[in-house]
């Protein structure tokens, strides 16, 4: 009996202070601690996500079927209007433009982000002095708030005094000043340009990590067989880089599609909606025109699109796992 006291020293805060293993209180607390307490670990986070993310999403769906205005916002007496909001949305040319722009914005950003990111990753995969110091500096772009980036590029893309125009004119690519973000034809291109800059560090980091995981021996064996640079890239690098490319690709598409800050600060979706994307359009509908129902409709369409994309991503991930 003295054994039990000696082998399990009492600790402050523990409930084995009472002598004897037969202490019923202790057994009860142990059971509680083993089976219920674990759920308490997850409870706060779960409550938060359900209350502040899941519920609002469902609320969104509800609002899209109602005629909510600034007047009945607080009292909650908005009437149900069925699919009227969705109909209004589909008939609104701003919606079709914004949807089209979102697709172009996402596709173009992805192509260049991944292309440039891959090129840089291949470059930084080589050994040279200063590599390890210079590489992380690209991530500075990641730490800077997007609004700051958009403001700077706003200035860089200025028609009269912007550096970009100066560079393009010096290289002879254009003749006169182009008002990138103020011209209906080039506004979307301008915001895509800024977004590419924003995405390069992430792509560079992930793709470089992917490159580094490819064993050197594979390249050496290929060289022995007489493979040239292109063959090595096409038959070794690209296939083995597929998981990393997939990751940056799918994650990039999702994050780019829902991007708000860049477009808002650079052009506010203008001029005249030329560079509007779905996030900026919905912001305007909700917070400038107070058309909550219509705004909710646009948001739901956006969510549906992203949801389908994520399902595709998970499907491809699963198939990749199975193939291994």
């Amino acid at each position, binding site marked *: 009996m003295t054994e039990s006291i000696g082998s399990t020293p009492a600790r402050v*805060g523990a409930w084995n202070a009472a002598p004897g293993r037969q202490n019923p209180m202790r057994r009860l607390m142990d059971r509680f601690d083993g089976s219920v307490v674990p759920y308490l670990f997850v409870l706060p986070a779960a409550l*938060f996500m359900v209350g502040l993310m899941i519920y609002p999403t469902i609320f969104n769906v509800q609002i899209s079927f109602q005629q909510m205005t600034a007047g009945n916002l607080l009292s909650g007496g908005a009437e149900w209007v069925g699919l009227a909001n969705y109909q209004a949305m589909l008939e609104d040319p701003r919606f079709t433009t914004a949807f089209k722009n979102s697709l172009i914005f996402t596709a173009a950003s992805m192509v260049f982000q991944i292309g440039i990111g891959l090129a840089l990753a291949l470059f930084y995969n080589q050994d040279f002095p200063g590599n390890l110091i210079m590489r992380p500096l690209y991530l500075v772009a990641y730490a800077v*708030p997007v609004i700051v980036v958009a403001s700077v590029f706003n200035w860089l893309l200025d028609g009269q005094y912007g550096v970009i125009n100066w560079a393009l004119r010096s290289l002879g690519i254009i003749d006169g000043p182009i008002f990138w973000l103020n011209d209906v034809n080039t506004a979307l291109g301008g915001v895509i340009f800024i977004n590419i800059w924003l995405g390069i560090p992430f792509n560079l980091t992930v793709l470089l990590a992917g490159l580094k995981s490819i064993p050197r021996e594979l390249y050496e064996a290929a060289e022995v067989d007489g493979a040239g640079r292109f063959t090595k890239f096409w038959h070794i690098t690209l296939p083995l880089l597929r998981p990393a490319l997939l990751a940056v690709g799918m994650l990039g598409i999702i994050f780019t599609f829902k991007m708000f800050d860049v477009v808002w600060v650079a052009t506010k979706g203008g001029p005249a909606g030329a560079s509007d994307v779905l996030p900026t359009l919905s912001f305007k509908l909700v917070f400038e025109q107070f058309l909550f129902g219509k705004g909710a409709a646009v948001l739901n369409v956006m969510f549906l699109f992203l949801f389908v994309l994520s399902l595709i991503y998970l499907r491809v991930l699963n198939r990749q796992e199975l193939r291994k």
Partner: protein
Amino acid sequence: MTRVVRSGYHLTFISLALLCIFLFPIYWMVLTSLKTTPQIFTYPPVFIPENLDFDMWINGILPDPNVWRYIRNSTIIATGTMVLTVLLAAPAAYAVAHLPIRGKSAIMIVSLSTLMFPAIMTAMPLFVIFSRLGLTNTYLGLILADTTLALPFAIVLLRPFFASIPKDLVEAARIDGCSQFGAFLRIIVPVARPGLMTAAIFAFLFGWGDLVFALALGDNNAVRPVTAGLWAYIGSFTNNWGGAMAFSTLAMAPPLVVFLITQRYVVAGLLAGGLKE
């Protein structure tokens, strides 16, 4: 052997050039804030001015009480987001990794799918909900909103960190009479510190850099963070590029400093997020 050394430095030079091109916008931002107005509005642009002019800083930005108010607000909101996120995410990720509970996959699926929620999609219903609860234009409201950005990411990030901690560590603590929570706090948390740091840093950066929730839920001048403040500043002066660049530099400084100090963790976090298990 000489050939190897020469080509090595050859690449260093290219790398330097690439980096300079890429980071040029940052240089241009800081430089513009240090130019005189005629120097700013000139073509061709002046890349290396003869002297630096601190007027915009000394007379424009630094004495402006609004600027400091916005920075204080951002600090409060970003720190609050960081603390709340870690407090919520760490136990949850640990439980999913090690504890006997049901519904683990549900939690992970919810976390992964909420990652793709556009902030604007949460902002609208939260605006309605917060308006009814009186949480608009409050620090708490903004902290709660920004945490919706950071929490899913933190959980997804932390789970593999906790999973890589050997179960025996936990078992040993439990045998010694520690409660679940005691074991978590005293043994697991110290070991998981790098992961927790990464999650904390990302939460801070998300909280500082958010614009959507700031505009939607907190545009009152008292709680407005620096992102919305910069937006308001740009909106009120049409061509004051010097001032806008100075304000931007100031807005960028704190997260940049945080990032430079904790760089290692940011890289680790990006890799964990990009190359999921």
